[in-house]
């Protein structure tokens, strides 16, 4: 550096000025860090259905399209409603979990086969196993729209008075079952009778 003394004198005087940008940035980084910490809540899609009566529905059965099945048949009991389709690969992921859960719980899992081909759905269940108490078919997506389904798979928990208690978006896992579903069920039902 040329003219060292002048430089350092000037430096001492104005050094603070050049530290301002980094100070401002550190403050900003803190705000962003807090934002990241809080953001998981922001990302969650809250269903307006939670705590509200489930929409009334009635759909043809997969086993026999002439007969229909719906909220009428489920009045007064706990049930789990699982929306799936053979075209949905995440549904394949969760299928094993559903099979395992069905073994341990007495709550009926009602499958809604969404926008699907009946023959394909039947062979899917024959091949991979059938965790469902009943499967109804939603060909034109009416139930999916009423229930506000974003994409398969989604799983709802409905209590005996027909109120939706919880909605799981994405695949069901044993951990989710324990934490969100079993904890809301009466102990006898969660454990199952077997």
């Amino acid at each position: 550096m040329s003219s060292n003394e002048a430089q350092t004198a000037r430096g001492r005087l104005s050094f603070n000025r050049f530290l301002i940008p980094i100070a401002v940035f550190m403050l900003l980084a803190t705000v962003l860090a807090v934002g990241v910490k809080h953001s998981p809540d922001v990302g969650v899609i809250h269903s307006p259905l939670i705590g509200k009566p489930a929409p009334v529905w009635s759909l043809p059965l997969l086993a026999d399209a002439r007969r229909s099945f719906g909220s009428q048949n489920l009045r007064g009991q706990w049930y789990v409603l699982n929306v799936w389709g053979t075209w949905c690969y995440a549904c394949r992921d969760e299928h094993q979990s559903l099979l395992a859960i069905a073994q341990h719980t007495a709550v009926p899992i009602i499958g809604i086969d969404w926008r699907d081909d009946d023959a394909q759905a039947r062979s899917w269940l024959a091949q991979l196993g059938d965790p469902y108490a009943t499967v109804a078919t939603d060909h034109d997506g009416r139930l999916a729209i009423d229930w506000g389904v974003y994409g398969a798979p989604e799983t709802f928990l409905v209590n005996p008075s027909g109120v939706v208690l919880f909605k799981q978006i994405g695949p069901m896992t044993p951990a989710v079952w324990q934490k969100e579903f079993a904890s809301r069920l009466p102990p006898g039902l969660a454990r199952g009778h077997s």
Partner: protein
Amino acid sequence: MVPELGHFALILAMLLALLQAFFGIAGPALGRDRWVAATLSAVAGQFVMVSTAVGCLILSFVNFDFSVRYVAENSNSALPLFYRIAALWGAHEGSLLLWIMLLACWTLAVAIGTTRLPPRFAARVLGVLGFLSFGFLLFTLVTSNPFLRLEPPAADGIDLNPLLQDPGLATHPPVLYTGYVGLAVAFAFACAAMLEGRTDPAWARWTRPWATAAWTFLTCGITLGARWSYYTLGWGGYWAWDPVENASFMPWLVATALIHSLAVTDKRGLFKSWTLLLAIVGFSMSLVGTFLVRSGVIVSVHSFAADPSRGTAILIFLTIAIGSALGLYAWRAPTLRSNGGFELAARESFLLFNNILLVIAAATVFGGTIAPLIADTLGQGALSVGAPYFKPTFLLPILPLLALLSIGIHANWKRGRLGDSRGALFTTLALACALGLAVVLGAYSGRQILSYVGVALGIWIILSSLVDPIDRWRRKLTLSRAVVGMTLAHIGVAVVVIAISLVESFTVERDIALAPGQSARVGSYDFRLLSVRPVEGPNYSAERGAVVVSRNGRTITTLFPEKREYWVRQQVGTAAGIKNEYGTDLFVALGDDLGAGRWSMRAQVRPLIALLWLGPAVMALGGFCALSDRRYRLARAGAQERAGVGPTERPA
């Protein structure tokens, strides 16, 4: 096999980027010229590896390889080839890969374009770029690898987000990202200058073409995005002050300030430390923008690829990159001194005002964008900031900026003698006021003061910009391409100002409900619904309306708005029916089926919206024109000798 090859290429690219950073920064610092030379090989290698990775992902999309998770999540066997290729950047992982690819392209361009600069300085620039590449590659490989497989493979994909199935997807993200990433080059030049301890303004001359190029691409990218949202999002808005739109706008404002302040540093050797800071802040805005889009900390219609867990990783990278650059700045900037002053009415002071006002504008946008975050941090709960805040606060710095632009064009370097051009100043001002009055009162018979001010300012800028070129042309003097480019860019700004003033004030918009055969009046046009019929697309079914638009009984056109339902994702998308008539857009979007054959619709008549797309096109043309100026190439040719004699070449 192909995805594994891509994955492997990406890992090699990361290692090469690390080498590039090491050789580029350590080589010049330790004075090892063989390390300096090795930087170039690392750049070339990294470019080849990143291209291979991108090629592999494209191949997986083209071949319907649904065993690759990213492909299964973002395409479908019914998705047309065009969108399967563009789906590459349709979600988080792929858009990061696009970012990396573009950074590799810019880096290669810098390596080729700086062969005439002092090798040690060029190596430092490449080293900083290598560090950025390394950060992004590491982030991609650890948190967002696009090559992960699905076990078992999906039978079919869950399709590309329908909102993205638009020709805009092919152009808007790559062009905008080219601009974003281009600011990294200016950032790297600034860091290299600080690492080297340069006190001369030569680096500003070398940075100018790169900053101009980045600015030009940003201009194009933002406009393409505005157009896309206008045509596809269904409700005819081109700008909503959405956080993600702001995230692209803030770097543009800072880049605009930067290209002006670089000019002052280059020509007059002033504003040295300020220019350095702007170069850092410009790229920081790009990084913060990426962070806001990708982390999901701010909810936005655009955050289709948000994931909070990745936010932390970007934040760490952002803090290291920006923090060290600002640290370097705090260390080096005090040694910079400006020699020579300037008078109040000299060109320098107008450019200083330009910079201050642009930075204030960027700060108001930034403040509004992160206000919800700050409220959250302070525990004040949810806060939403929208157009009612942005519109007036943004105008506050922008209106004086436009007025000063018209005056400042006439100012000379160093000396404040505006008196010489007083005649031109007042003639153009009077003419602009009269013409603005004629346009607003005459053509639109409107009374909005703001639209009048906007139109008059726009016309004033155009007239003032033309005074000097016309004068030179009459005196048979040559015009450099840089001057032509600057004039075009300023005219482009003016066209945008005029367009926004008129579009915002004189758009007629009505929500109407019509049964087939009925019609409604919107402005001076009649919209008559003919029919609504179902149609089938490649991967969606739609209701297509036919709406006849007429004026004074004369049929102008038939619009075909569609409401689409995409099969796989069960998502509804709209495609508005739009026809441009002498610069006025006739717009209709289909709403809901109200039963009994009646449909709700939104109809708009937007005058002169065509100017809104024309303005930025003229600005970009100006940018490219300035880039083609011979002076930039001559400056590069002359750089070596100058730097050879200069006292600045010393190890840091």
